[in-house]
């Protein structure tokens, strides 16, 4: 359910962003999906396949999903910590922090077109 609406919003976003002639030449879509975005890549791929049934014009366009790990940067000591088990603590100074620098993103990172 959630993944279907995400796929719809990806395609709508691209249709707003690029001209029709350009979209006809679209070859691949690259997403960056943070671990906190509640998106499961495999389910997103399934939803994307289902989308092609209604929109065969995009069936040759491949979808690549890169998952990103969760990282915080401590506001006090600037140390960057990769978060494990959702314990939002700086591994250097032990202070709690919500300053997430990676892992929340839900981005269309790159789009490739046939030249």
């Amino acid at each position, binding site marked *: *359910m*959630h993944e279907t*609406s*995400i796929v719809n*919003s*990806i395609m*709508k*976003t691209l249709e707003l*962003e690029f001209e029709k002639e350009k979209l006809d*030449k679209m*070859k691949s879509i690259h*997403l960056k999906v943070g671990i*906190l*975005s*509640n998106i499961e890549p495999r389910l997103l791929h399934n939803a994307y396949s289902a989308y092609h049934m209604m929109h065969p014009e995009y069936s040759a366009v491949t979808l690549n999903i890169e998952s990103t790990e969760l990282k915080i940067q401590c506001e006090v000591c600037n140390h960057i910590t990769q978060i494990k*088990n*959702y*314990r*939002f*603590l700086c591994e250097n100074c032990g202070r*709690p*922090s*919500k300053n997430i620098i990676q892992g929340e*993103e*839900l*981005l*269309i*990172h*790159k*789009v*490739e*077109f*046939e*030249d």
Partner: protein
Amino acid sequence: MIEKSPKTARGSVQCENTNIHLLKANDFVADIIRKEIAKTKTLLINVTSSPGSGKTTLMQKTAEKLKDKINMAVMVGDLETERDAERIRETGIHALQIVTGGICHLEAQMVHQVLDKFDLENLDLLFIENVGNLVCPASFDLGEDYRVTLLATTEGDDKPKKYPKMFLTTDLMLVSKSDLLPYLPFTLEAVTKDAREVNHELEVIQISSLTDEGIDEWCDWLVEKINDKKGF
């Protein structure tokens, strides 16, 4: 939030680095909502939880306690039925049901569509009772001032880390159904520790809509935020 780099041709493939936020459309509408409620100084609270943790009962209880002191209303999202809005209306406040027709969360567009059904000029407090779900609603900004998440004692004190995004983005956790504590292997200490490892700024209030435990503290929290917004 569009950051585009110049087009770069690589072999036979033309490539655009985009970095377009996928929920851009939602966040755009959420900002419109935020601006509208800033004009009328209406406090907007997004209430989330899993199904059956007592959101609607808390809305009824809050209406009973506060409706004579402040002007309040509720918009409530559900996949189907008008049941919750009907229950809330029985307390004498305005309530509108948003039937999502199967969608597991509310989006800013849905909230914006019904916003003009409320007399915001004369409203101090507007609740959005979200669809019962601790996953998807976490990702959708509805333009709210605060997010409040209920966690019932019957759900278990190990839940916050299972739904980290929700507890990371929420401002206040209401531990509901505290009247059942004597019968359950659940402690406020354990649930608070788990939630604060995700979100160290999280406020916690233990409540029971049945025995009234914590309800005054919750109402005081609301009144304080309403006054802050009005600049009192």
